[in-house]
């Protein structure tokens, strides 16, 4: 007789370490970037072929989209560099990996904010 057993996986009740936050950010940013790939290729085409190139100064919605995109690119890049370094055995201790996770998280938000503020 097979019994259906419940499992405990209530995210609200779990305390996630900073490394796992950086990691899920890496995954989410990756998927986001993947979804914007068609737009990127379209933008490339516009930049090379069309008479009227893309006007990148949009309203608040465009600026928000840019902020999210910039965050995704920055976070994916920084978290990716963190992974490449730990592949080379740099920063695989617990303290080092925590520090690099914080650096990646904060760095990405900083870069994204800079893109928002600068013209």
């Amino acid at each position, binding site marked *: 007789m097979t019994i259906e057993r419940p499992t405990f996986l209530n995210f609200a009740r779990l305390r996630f370490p900073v490394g796992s936050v950086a990691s899920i950010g890496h*995954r989410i940013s*990756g*998927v986001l*970037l*993947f979804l914007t*790939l*068609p737009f990127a*290729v379209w933008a*490339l*085409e516009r*930049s*090379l*072929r069309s008479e009227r*190139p893309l006007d990148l100064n949009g309203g608040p919605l465009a600026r928000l989209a840019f902020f999210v995109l910039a965050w995704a690119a920055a976070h994916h*890049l920084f978290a*990716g*560099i963190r*992974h*490449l370094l730990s*592949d080379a055995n740099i920063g695989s201790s617990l303290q080092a990996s925590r520090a690099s996770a914080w650096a990646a998280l904060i760095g990405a938000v900083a870069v994204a904010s800079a893109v928002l503020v600068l013209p």
Partner: protein
Amino acid sequence: MMVFSGQRAFLLQRLSALVLLAYVVAAALRLAFGAPAGLAEWRAWAAQPLAAAILLLLAGAVLLHAWVGVRDVVLDYVQPLPLRAAVLLLVASVLVMLGAWTALILVSHAL
């Protein structure tokens, strides 16, 4: 059924990441130290066959890197085999199409 074995996919992801990193560093240096490029300069540069080839390599690296990454996500979250096959096929098709589209843009601009 998988196109890439565990280790091969892992390596491809790392290698394509290194290529992309090189591009990011190069682009950052160019933006930091070169004069801001206008549209005309960009079009002129991209029209050179070598530049087109460089951009093609970049596109290839992006597509390979994206494939391994998205495949990982699908393997994690999509369990039923037929659904997984369908999703992976869709993603692969989109990436191949994007690659072809990019190649056509760059090649037609260089010619």
